[in-house]
């Protein structure tokens, strides 16, 4: 039976101390007040949200030696899809920091204000991610979720151009204020998306297949092969 998409709102209390530490608040001299104002603004306006939908994989195939899955009318192709072998139930999702400050004019503020806002949006996204994990644990019993993300890792892992297919399966993301650009980038920039699943047979982590070994956000060591 086809299941409908679900929208979740995440409770979020932005952490002032970690924000101040991240933006090196003590060095900001005369701009400290601006940084605090932005914190207050983000705290009162940002509404992190999640859109998710339980999905069934109809077919597992190989297309030109690459693993592929078909879900409804959408076909995904890429090395990463090998992780879905023997998996039939997945959850498509988009989690976002919220678009409430996307149009906010920062031009009159300190030149670092866009980075301060990014830091706050990152915190808000963490709230959305937490909400997604909690919901999947409560509703579907997924205690250790794995996630495949279009565009994550090297280009042949799962090309970002297939993001549109994921959005199509979710039935549109306007409800949570997320847009896809022509280049398949998500706006707001602090948004994540993918297919979430549970499997005792794999420890898939997209980060492992990205060649950028010195990345400050690296979670696991680089692996040559999937």
């Amino acid at each position, binding site marked *: 039976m086809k299941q409908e998409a679900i929208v979740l709102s995440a409770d979020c209390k932005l952490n002032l101390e970690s924000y101040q530490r*991240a*933006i*090196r608040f003590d*060095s*900001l*001299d*005369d701009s400290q007040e601006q940084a605090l104002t932005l914190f207050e603004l983000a705290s009162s306006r940002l509404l992190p949200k999640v859109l998710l939908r339980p999905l069934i994989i109809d077919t597992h195939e190989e297309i030109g030696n690459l693993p592929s899955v078909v879900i409804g009318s959408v076909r995904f192709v890429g090395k990463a899809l090998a992780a879905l072998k023997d998996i039939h139930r997945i959850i498509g999702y988009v989690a976002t920091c919220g678009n409430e400050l996307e149009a906010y004019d920062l031009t009159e503020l*300190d*030149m*670092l204000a866009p*980075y301060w806002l990014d830091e706050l949006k990152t915190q808000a996204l963490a709230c959305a991610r937490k909400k997604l994990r909690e919901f999947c644990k409560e509703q579907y019993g997924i205690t250790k979720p794995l996630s495949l993300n279009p*565009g994550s*890792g*090297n*280009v042949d892992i799962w090309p*970002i151009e297939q993001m549109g297919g994921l959005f199509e399966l979710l039935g549109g993301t306007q409800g949570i204020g997320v847009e896809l*650009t022509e*280049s*398949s*980038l998500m706006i707001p*920039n602090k948004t994540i998306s993918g297919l979430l699943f549970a499997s005792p047979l794999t420890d898939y982590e997209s980060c492992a297949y*990205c*060649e*950028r070994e*010195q*990345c*400050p956000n690296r979670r696991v060591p680089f692996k040559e092969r999937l």
Partner: protein
Amino acid sequence: MADMQALSEFLQRGKAKEVKELVQQAVSEGLSAEDILDQGLLVGMNKIGVKFKNNEVFVPEVLIAARAMNAGMEILKPLLAAANAQNRGTVVLGTVKGDLHDIGKNLVGMMLKGKGLTVIDLGTDVPPERFVEAAAKHSAQIIACSALLTTTMKEMEKVVKAVKSAGLDVKVMVGGAPVTEAFKTSIGADFYSPDAATASEIALQVCRNA
């Protein structure tokens, strides 16, 4: 006498207020804007760039240093403009298509302006044809492309091809975390820069030779 070493150190610590005061003092004492830039501000930015490369400092430290540099540049900009009445050259700058990261690009932009170059900043997620159009429109000598992701650095090759097929006499410089000299060679770009300071040196050299 304004201490250029102290200026460099204040900049590295992100002390914008102190940088501004020291730059103002140096100007009042008759030091040329170019000397203040070369011996104080750029020395500081170069050092912070090296520390960043060696993982001794991280992005926030680079940002507050850039902010301090900007504070100094606000004083120097009109003086540099007056000294370089003739434009030293034009650079078209942008983060390639598919990539929204702009910290590195903005640092490069700041350093380029510090060298007296005109910067046409196209922003992020820039398709190859926009680089080419802007280079032609502004008669640029160099296109500088930035990418943070291994997934998007391949877009740089499309920029190189677009420049070639447009028949433009403009050099292409590439940079960003995953980019290397070998990658530059493999896509046929003209220059690779490992950091913002080097990018500005290369761009100035290209413009002088053009």
